[in-house]
């Protein structure tokens, strides 16, 4: 199963990942539209992003969430009704929503953030 592996210890809070992600998945420069989020807590950076656990798949009332061939959990926006139950039920709070966007969004393990990270804190991996 493909997923984005994070190494928070390497993170220096550059947040290039957020910009790359927002641009890639939502065509925006607004970091609030990024599926990956970096936060600083007591001088230590934390990285929050979907780990592809799939808990959201069974929560969805319209079967809009499913795994693709690589095991990545994907949202079919055509089916999605924007109810955001997947956002509320995500065990790691990694399903995102934004007032400009009707449907939620999440990490699709595309690797854009990993390529943008100058500290190699992110990588696409298998588990």
């Amino acid at each position, binding site marked *: 199963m493909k997923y984005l592996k994070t190494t928070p210890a390497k993170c220096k809070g550059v947040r290039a990942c957020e910009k790359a992600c927002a641009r890639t998945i939502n065509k925006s420069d607004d970091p609030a539209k990024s599926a990956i989020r970096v936060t600083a807590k007591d001088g230590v950076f934390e990285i929050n992003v979907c780990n592809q656990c799939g808990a959201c798949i069974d929560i969805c009332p319209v079967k809009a969430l499913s795994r693709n061939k690589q095991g990545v959990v994907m949202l079919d926006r055509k089916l999605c009704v924007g109810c955001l*139950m997947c956002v509320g039920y995500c065990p790691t709070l990694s399903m995102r929503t934004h007032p400009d966007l*009707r449907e939620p969004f999440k990490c699709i393990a595309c690797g854009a953030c990993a390529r943008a990270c100058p500290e190699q804190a992110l990588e696409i991996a298998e588990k």
Partner: protein
Amino acid sequence: MDVNKVFEYTRYLDGIEKMKAAHVVLAEYAYTPSLPEKGYTNRTLHVDLSTMKISEKKVDEAMKKTFTGGRGFGLKYLWDAIKPTTKWNDPENDIIISPGPICGITQYPGAGKSLVVTLSPITNIPIDSNVGAYLGPLLKFSGFDALEIQGKATEDVIVVLEGVKGRVTIERAPLESVNSHVAAEQFTHEYAADEADRRNVSVASAGQAAEHSLIGCLNFCYYDVRRKVTRLKQAGRGGIGTVFRDKHLKALVVHGPQVKGDMNRPADLGRVQRAGVKLHREMHDFDDKMCTMRKVGTTNIVSVMNAYDLLPVMNFQYGSHPDAKHIDKTTWIRKFTQGIPDGCWYGCSMACAHGVDEFALRTGPYQGHKVIVDGPEYETAAGCGSNCGIFDPHWVIECNFYCDTYGIDTISFGTITGFVMECWQRGILDKERTGGLELTWGNGEAQLEMMHQMARGEGFGAQYAGQGVHRMKTMFADNGWGDRQLLDDIALEGKGLEQSEYMSKESLAQQGGYYLTNKGPQHDEAWLIFMDMVNNQIPTFEDKAEALYYFPMFRTWFGLNGLCKLPWNDIEPGDNRTANTPQEAAKVPEHVQNYVDLFSGVTGREITKEEIIAMSERVYQFQRVFDLRMGKGTRQYDKAPYRAVGPVTREEYESRQERYDKQLTDWMKVDPAGKSTEEKMALHRAYREDRYQKLVDAVYKRRGWTENGIPTLETLRRNGIDFPEVVAAVKPHLK
């Protein structure tokens, strides 16, 4: 379980093409489809089945300001449609389905409700009933804030609203079933283009028994994309299904557009989203620790009611029973399929609409069929179960199924069956009088057969039971069956409507919560038993009156906006009980703020918590005047049967002798020693009936009514509903 499991159900689709081909279009109307703007489409669809005329009405700003939507719109349209002399089966009686401005948002739990309003056959005053499933939202997204159906067809017809094409038709449809579990499936398949489109179709239907009784319910369906089956939710109370069938409506089909998260075109989508995600998260964090709605729905309270002596047992004689464990959540968690998203509208993370899958029926025309049964919910488990002395879950489920498909209100049916079974216990009924039905406590088969009789329009079921307890007690007395006083005492009804399924004997506030209501004793307005009886948070008459002002007004608001009550207080923020006083905690202030955010976020009209009450009160007072206009709405119609107030019989008294004797000492300062049970019962009756009247006085005062229960002119003015015809309805009673 595997959420993608394939269930085996009996299907009713053989010959479906032939059924569709047999339709004949009798009338057609073209319109331009539109989505709501800030929650409103600003127009209503009107269908007259007598003239076969279909038309539109404009919804103006004044209508929205005064009546908000939902129940408010329904009552206003009904007021305009009927006269004070109108009877329920007159052609001018109107069925109004209105979803309300918030209805159809997908982000917040419980936001797919519609309100159905009509002149009730069982009470002869307006009834409003709150129903889930997809029809209301799809109606709105097809372009209409409400649908009115007036007139009466001369033969069975269906009304079809094609919300994408912009076409409304009245069609002859002779081959489909009238019974709801079949009709819902057949019409859904006929009008959906394919499997993916089935969720965009919703069907309203009643059933055979609605034709032959006064307690017919209206089913709304939705297509469950995981189970691949149509499911039913009910506008249960007050005989709406009876009116539907009396108009010769077989079904109403709404085929709307595919739903997205912004179809209400809200003023501030982000505000709606934030409130929704917050509640989804609360559900995720606390439901397992609080009400377990996601696992067992409202049946979670069967064991709670039983523990507090509040579960109706044997026509509300008793409040608990050792066998209640067979119909409590420990049973339902096994019977309900677990792990499937079970909301009756998108985004309901409370997900209480549980189903018993592949249920094999033992009786009636569908004997041997395997079906999905929606529920039972608490009311059905208590009403059709413990209240009839029935503790075998099979019969509760089968009764639930046939009530739904035949179009019968499970609450009225449960209270009716409890009443006739007590009449049997007391010798008022016997085999000869019931035509062979042995209506003994616990006889689930007899209960089912009584319902099959209703469906066939024959026997005791149709002639007596289907007429409701109000008419039955008079018919029995007229036949010389039983003592009139006893019949009045044990018939759990007010204004003609059967009481819902909680014991109110030990909670004065709940006696008011049931019987000081606009449409009769239901739990839609106020549920105060815990605040009052268990926690003693509203000890004085004034405290109780304040609760009987605030909660009915607040809860009315759900029905104005297309919302479900359950996500308000069947889940609470984690700090609700610590951050607030007990009295404030009962209001769940943080959730009230959510509703402020939802209304303001959708409509763009900024409101406050106080305005929620003001919006509701306008409609509530209007409904009270409407009752008055139809010949009720005065003090004499707010009385409670004594079974709801205190112990009617010796057995009841003695079952709680210790408690009642102590009350004699504590409340009445009377020493029970040496007194016979009859003497003690008489003391209780005098005390409790007097106490109820004092409560009535306090509540009327708080609501701005006269001693006879009439809203004063000042009350009408304060609420901005002093329209000439409203004032005219009130004035003769103010002299």
